[in-house]
């Protein structure tokens, strides 16, 4: 019922292509995240689904219905805006009741429903407040309650957490996920924050320059990035460019080239899979290098080691025994196994 399908969607703004042949299927009840850098077209797709703009090509299906040319008010798609867009001259409860009044329900049912959603976002007692007298986090909750109250088939969220400070953002993240799971509502969430994407989503779609590069579960996207863009955008990584030219300068590149038997590729090695030790060991790959930088981040410690003229970053738990003794300027060995290498499409 809440499944959203985008087929061959294209959207142009004058000469800039905001969406290039997008094909997506967003399963009913999923928490689906659009992730990508600024200007890659995330908002545009959201607004296409909401119906504020129309695609130049392709079609949008919601459930079994083709909604491509339907007006926004006929779609039953809820949207939470980045700036919340709460109606400034209405109180909290009037904002939440707005969509219910449109549906011409009975007075009693409007009141009951609005109060239920107000309670759901934890704002009991603030019914009569002017929205301008609320804190950022409270405004956020009103915006959620207002969109949820109409019980939409799909909930669209355009960077809803970006206006909150870090602490509040963490709280709202958890609460939002709780609400979504509780209601089982199909949710499309836009962000350019990878942590948000990885922690909350059932599925992630990574965008770049108007195109959808990869879709998959957080684990899939993180562990098997399709190309160097995805690898760099999601999580930290060591990216090696391996080809006949670099093989002449670097013994590691040469070894990798012969091992994989191809003529050129990018290889990604996640920092947490690189071990640093004082003594050499028997891993598939083991290189000698010099520690250039060390930074302690509480739970983890990050080391930058130059080996084979490449700067490797390694992140290990601070409690790993060898970590404490390694100092900047020291000679060390870095090692990683074959299974930690990810060969990327170019």
């Amino acid at each position, binding site marked *: 019922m809440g499944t959203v399908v985008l087929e061959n969607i294209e959207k142009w703004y004058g000469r800039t292509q905001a969406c290039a042949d997008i094909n997506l299927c967003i399963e009913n009840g999923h928490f689906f995240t659009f992730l990508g850098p600024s200007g890659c077209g995330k908002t545009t797709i959201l607004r296409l689904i909401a119906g504020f703009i129309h695609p130049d090509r392709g079609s949008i299906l919601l459930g079994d219905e083709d909604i491509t040319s339907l007006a926004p*008010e006929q*779609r039953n798609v809820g949207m939470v805006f980045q700036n919340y*867009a709460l*109606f400034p001259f209405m109180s909290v409860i009037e904002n939440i009741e707005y969509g219910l009044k449109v549906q011409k329900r009975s007075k009693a049912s409007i009141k009951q429903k609005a109060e239920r959603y107000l309670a759901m976002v934890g704002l009991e007692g603030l019914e009569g407040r002017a929205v301008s007298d609320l804190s950022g986090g409270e405004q956020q909750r009103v915006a959620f309650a207002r969109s949820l109250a109409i019980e939409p088939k799909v909930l669209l969220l355009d960077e809803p957490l970006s206006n909150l400070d870090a602490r509040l953002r963490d709280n709202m993240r958890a609460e939002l996920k709780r609400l979504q799971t509780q209601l089982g509502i199909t949710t499309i969430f836009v962000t350019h924050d990878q942590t948000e994407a990885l922690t909350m989503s059932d599925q992630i779609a990574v965008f770049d320059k108007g195109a959808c590069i990869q879709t998959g579960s957080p684990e899939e996207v993180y562990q098997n990035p399709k190309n160097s863009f995805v690898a760099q955008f999601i999580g930290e990584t060591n990216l090696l460019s391996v080809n006949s030219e670099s093989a002449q300068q670097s013994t590691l590149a040469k070894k990798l080239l012969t091992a994989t038997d191809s003529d050129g590729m990018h290889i990604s090695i996640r920092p947490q899979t690189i071990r640093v030790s004082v003594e050499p060991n028997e891993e598939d790959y083991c290189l000698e290098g010099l520690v250039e930088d060390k930074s302690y981040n509480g739970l983890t410690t990050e080391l930058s080691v130059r080996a084979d003229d490449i700067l490797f970053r390694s992140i290990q738990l601070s409690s790993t025994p060898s970590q404490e003794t390694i100092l900047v300027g020291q000679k060390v060995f870095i090692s990683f196994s074959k299974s930690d290498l990810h060969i990327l499409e170019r």
Partner: protein
Amino acid sequence: MVHRRHPDSIVKYSGLFLLLFFLIGYILFPAMKTVETSLTANGGFSLVHYQDFFSSETARLPLVNSILLGLLSVFVCGGVGISLAFAIHFYEFPLRSIADKLLLLPLVMPGIIIVFAFVQLYGESGMVTKALQLLLKLESSPFALSGLPGILIIHAYTQYVYFYITVSIAIKQMDYSAIESASNLGASRRRVFCSIILPFLKPAIIAAAAMTFISGAGSFTAPSIIGGDFKVLTTQILLSKANNYMEIAATQVSLLTIISLLFFIIFRIYEAKSQFISSVKGVSFKPVIIVNPFTRIITHTIVWLVIGSILLPLATIILVSFVPSSSWMVNYFPQEFTIENYTETFSSSRKLQPFFNSTVMALLAAWVGLLVAIPSSFVIVKTKLKAKWLVELLTMLPWAIPASAIAINIINAFNKPSIFSLNEVLVGTSILLPLGYLVRTLPVVVKTLNVSFQNLNENYIEASKSLGGSSFYTFRKITIPILYPGIIAGFLLIFIRSIGEYTVSVFLYNASNKPLSIAMVNGIFEYNIGLAMAYGTMLIFLTFFLSSIMNMLLKRSPRKHAESQL
């Protein structure tokens, strides 16, 4: 790639065409007609009117006087307005909001009323003047409110508001942390003022100076009534018009307009130069406490005295409206009170006619004004049309043209048939005066509405639609509630500014639409002072009542409108 054609683009462009037709026809075309008239002699192009003007000492002098009056007004009003803004908004001030409201009164009160109140109080046989004479046992009046000093006093009283409003707003927006950090770095108070506070306020001060110069140099009401031998361009323009020397009037108007525009542009460039981008969102300003109790008491006393002197003239008008006109022949001070001035006015349809005329014309100007201002603001704020700058320029143009010039422009444009007058001669008809009111108030109204349209964020409309509201429902429940305070306020603004308007009225009224302000002046010159003051009192209450409604409405909208009310 498929291009979608907007089905409503025909509506859009014909709307824009109508708007531009109006703005060009009733603002630009009249100004151009005046320039053309001033450059025409014996049916051909000629500079002879300008040559005559500049070769005659008596013709030149009023021009010099006008510029002088403009500049002096800037200094006097700047002094008064900036001091008041500091006293009330920079320092802690008891009853700030009441004092603030009272200080804004001269903005809405018709100028003609204030001039007469001053004459009643400080004129040669004014009540204050005579009281002083008796007190000091002088042979003759100690002073007379006339000439350049007289005009300047009235300007100080009516035009300080520009400085007061803009500087007050700038003070409130000042970044308090900058002041604190400067003091923290060891700067002396004087240094903090010169290096921190002044740069913050400079753009506001310059903007106010531009407005004050234009209204000072183009002032007509005060010079025409108490100017005496001090002749300025605006009064000369009326003389030329009365003698039907329209080419000379056109020349004088062109010169006055050019000077206004010139100063306007100079100030604008200067303002742009002193503009700065404040780095981050600072700490909002908190008023400073005057520590020295002596200084504090002196400051507060002076401010309340000023406020008292602002209320005094209005109180005088109301008082005098209850005094029989005939008693002024024998007494300097009112001895008896009566309501006969009012009963007389209300029982004679002839005497009530001016009130009726002004109301009808102000209403007409307000309705048509909205019809023009709403689409103009919409185009300026909400569209990316190429013609947007033209709409903005044309709606703001009357702001830099003195009222007398607007009136002459309208006469020059409509004394012959043109497409803008639907091929009729309009001079002599009653339509010109409301048109003049409209043109004169258009910039203020467009500015007020611009704020409303800026409040109308696109996201509100989208949010409403995504909640299921149809276009019509959204328009009713979201668009109108956001716009309506600005729209009603705009309507009232045109009405208030028009109902007691004097300058445009003098130039454009005729026997069948004599407005209230002209009836007041006639009353005075016919020694029917009581009647004139009864008109004045009605005007004061009406304006006061309507502007209270207007302020209430503007306060309800999220963004501050005060700035746009100028």
